[in-house]
């Protein structure tokens, strides 16, 4: 290929525009990503004098690590939030999509937790869920719904589920907005035709709106399951991973950064997390696509 002078100049300029970004991304994104895969094959800790290549040993160790399996189990258990989020945020969207008076106010109110930092959200709910002094137990016992205080965050049976409600509460507004956009994109003629044919609102919902919303439902399923698999801040703030509530990302942080700084091993876990998210997203897209065709 031969480039004329002005063509060469244009190529040079194009790369000049990209240069600062490419440098920053190479140093802070591409290189660390590659190195994560390499480090997963090393016994590596900045605290240790002899770091060596160990092949797949880290992954073999993973397969025998009970804490890893418990954390992985919790991360999968956490996926319960996905269907709950889909149903509740769709319901919210159906409530506030029609242009009724004050609808903007309601939308804004439901969206407020989305913009608030998780650290503070987790802290408020930790106060509310407090076993002895929390407002939730006080209210429930005043209404005589419970006879003794419920250990929302202090019982291994309940803690993880209590944390899930916080994740759901914070996220609903975000997914609601995706569904509102989806509802807006349904052609009017379709809804009018359904009405002329005498569809009741429930029939319209089931046979027109939900099938037309399938792309939005898929999107919400993908985003919410990726973030459920990555849950960290809620756990850090509300239980510190105690009471059997450690999740995969919390375990990576705990082992790789905070405690022993077993970075090679933590990277192996990161690779496992990546594979899980990748496979999960892939199947989400495939399954949702198939269900849509039926």
């Amino acid at each position, binding site marked *: 290929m031969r480039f004329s002078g002005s063509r060469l100049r244009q190529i040079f300029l194009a790369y000049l525009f990209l240069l600062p970004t490419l440098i920053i991304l190479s140093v*802070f994104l591409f290189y660390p990503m590659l190195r994560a895969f390499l480090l997963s094959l090393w016994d590596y800790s900045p605290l240790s004098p002899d770091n060596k290549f160990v092949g797949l040993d880290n992954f073999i160790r993973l397969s025998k690590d009970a804490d890893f399996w418990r954390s992985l189990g919790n991360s999968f258990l956490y996926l319960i939030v996905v269907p709950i989020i889909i149903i509740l945020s769709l319901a919210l969207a159906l409530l506030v999509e029609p242009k009724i008076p004050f609808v903007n106010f309601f939308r804004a109110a439901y969206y407020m937790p989305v913009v608030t930092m998780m650290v503070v959200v987790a802290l408020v709910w930790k106060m509310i869920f407090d076993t002895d002094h929390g407002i939730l137990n006080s209210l429930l016992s005043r209404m005589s719904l419970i006879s003794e205080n419920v250990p929302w965050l202090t019982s291994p049976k309940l803690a993880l589920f209590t944390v899930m409600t916080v994740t759901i509460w914070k996220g609903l507004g975000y997914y609601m907005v995706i569904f509102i*956009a989806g509802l807006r994109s349904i052609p009017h003629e379709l809804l009018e035709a359904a009405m002329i044919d005498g569809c009741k609102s429930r029939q319209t919902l089931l046979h027109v709106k939900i099938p037309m919303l399938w792309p939005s439902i898929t999107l919400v399923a993908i985003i919410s399951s990726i973030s459920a698999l990555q849950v960290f801040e809620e756990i850090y703030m509300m239980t510190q991973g105690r009471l059997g509530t450690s999740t995969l990302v919390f375990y990576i942080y705990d082992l790789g*950064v905070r405690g022993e700084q077993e970075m090679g091993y933590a990277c192996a876990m990161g690779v496992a997390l990546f594979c899980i998210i990748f496979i999960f997203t892939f199947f989400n897209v495939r399954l949702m696509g198939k269900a849509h065709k039926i």
Partner: protein
Amino acid sequence: MKIFLKYLFLIALVIVFVGPFYWLVSIALRASGDIYSLRIIPENPTLMNFAETWQKFELWRPFVNSVMVAAAVLFLNILLSSLAAYPLARLKFPGRDLIFFLLLSTMMIPFQLYMIPLFLTCLKLGLMNSLAGIVLPTSVGVFGIYLIKQYYLTIPMDLEEAARIDGAGEFSIWWRIMFPLTKPAIATLSIFTFVGNWSNFLWPLIIIDREDKYTLPIAIAKLSGAFIDKTQYLAAGSVIAIAPVIIIYLFMQRYFISGISAGAVKG
């Protein structure tokens, strides 16, 4: 009647979503000794807790840090994404599709996979315990480049072509024509970058372990671990930490909500 019930339900939901914020503020306003009462409006409300958290617990320090980090991240993101998106949208050069594909494919990779090698890189570059260590890794993002590139594509070519015929160089075309025209996309990018960065927790937690370099989320998290029986201070600190974002949100609400719809490309 049906409408009345619907509004009653919508208002009940407002209590569910906004109630916890109200509860936080009401705790922050309480005088000591009054923490656990169920009173909805605190008796003898006081602003002392805010003053004490701000000065005695030096919350002003992480507040200033957070503001500086947010300003730097915002500036760099706007500048670098607009620059990088321009050739990707408008110029023909070898490697363009490869670079774009490479950028998009990194969006699939979770931060938690590479945070440890990133930490090692920053350690080597001497960025540990510095605000630059928080800023640089978040100074440009693939989402931002993508957002601006999509917006460039909606701008008609005629303007640039006319400028090119008049002999304008690529850089002045970008600076005088394209950049000013992307204001709506930049508004969206700014809001998302600011809110995301203001709340960013995991990365600062890793790269900062000196108290004078904490950002607000880290300071609040460490406070909550440190003292247990002074809930009002913690609540006051939390209110201070979320106030800037909430205030911006209340004024620019529609940008937030239309921004998501723009970002969430259908299908």
